[in-house]
């Protein structure tokens, strides 16, 4: 895990939270859509909040897929659940909504869960993938010093020739 990967996880979190809130804000402006009047969906997309929300959710999906390409599902999901906390904090401090004690408890539980996951490895090392990708290191751990010695011995001759 390097800085860029943490940035991707932060992207998943923020894009999901921001996209959902923009979408819900926009949908409240356009009013409810019924299955009998599906053309309402088209008008909903024309609402700028809804359009920005959809763009943000596309960004969420791209970062989510990127994160899943190098981390376990059981790592990415809890790690990005801070988005729920983010939404509650935005509701409390930007929108000045009331956040009940039960919700603060929920925030504490989620934060605790994320803390639990953050200390562990991001990706399960599978025996078969390890064999396929780094076969030499998996099989010949004992031979590694030998390889290193050969490389050392080989280096001077390479320089000379």
């Amino acid at each position, binding site marked *: 895990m390097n800085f*860029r*990967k943490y940035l*991707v996880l932060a992207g998943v979190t923020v894009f999901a939270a921001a996209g959902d809130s923009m979408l819900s804000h926009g949908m409240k402006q356009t009013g409810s859509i019924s299955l009998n009047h599906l053309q309402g969906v088209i008008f909903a997309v024309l609402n700028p909040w809804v359009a920005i929300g959809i763009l943000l959710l596309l960004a969420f999906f791209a970062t*989510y*897929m*990127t994160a*899943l*390409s*190098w981390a*376990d*599902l*059981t*790592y990415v*999901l*809890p790690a990005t*659940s801070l988005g*729920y*906390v983010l939404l*509650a904090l935005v509701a409390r401090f930007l929108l000045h909504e009331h956040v009940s004690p*039960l*919700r603060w*408890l*929920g*925030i*504490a*539980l*989620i*934060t*605790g*869960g*994320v803390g*639990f*996951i953050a*200390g*562990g490895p991001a990706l*399960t090392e*599978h025996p078969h993938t390890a064999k396929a990708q780094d076969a030499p290191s998996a099989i010949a751990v004992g031979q590694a010093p030998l390889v290193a010695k050969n490389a050392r011995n080989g280096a001077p001759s390479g320089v000379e020739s």
Partner: protein
Amino acid sequence: MKGIYTWSAIFAIVFASVVGDVLLARAMKQVGDVGALWRRIGFVAVIGRTLGNPYFLFGVTAMAVAFFSLLFALSWGDVSLVAPAAASLTFIGNAVAAKIFLHERVDRRRWIAAGLVAAGVALLAG
């Protein structure tokens, strides 16, 4: 009677989104590290490789099913029940499914994390 409809729809959401998440996770593991691939074969090739992966297409389909199940659930039940119930059960379902189908090492640390987040989400949205 309406409760049965709502809970069936909630379980449909959970089932479809767990299936979707597992398929998408497997697809992206097959595609490989997107950051490294981007530098090696370029952005368009990465997109093409992702969209061409059958697991990815099935995963997106499952996610679409989950979305429409959500619409049905919301038409039968309150959003204050449906959203937290579906979200928190999905966290637990994903931990189980990732262990069984993706062979991820879901150790005690990850079980506790999934449980805490599921409980927290239920409280937060409830």
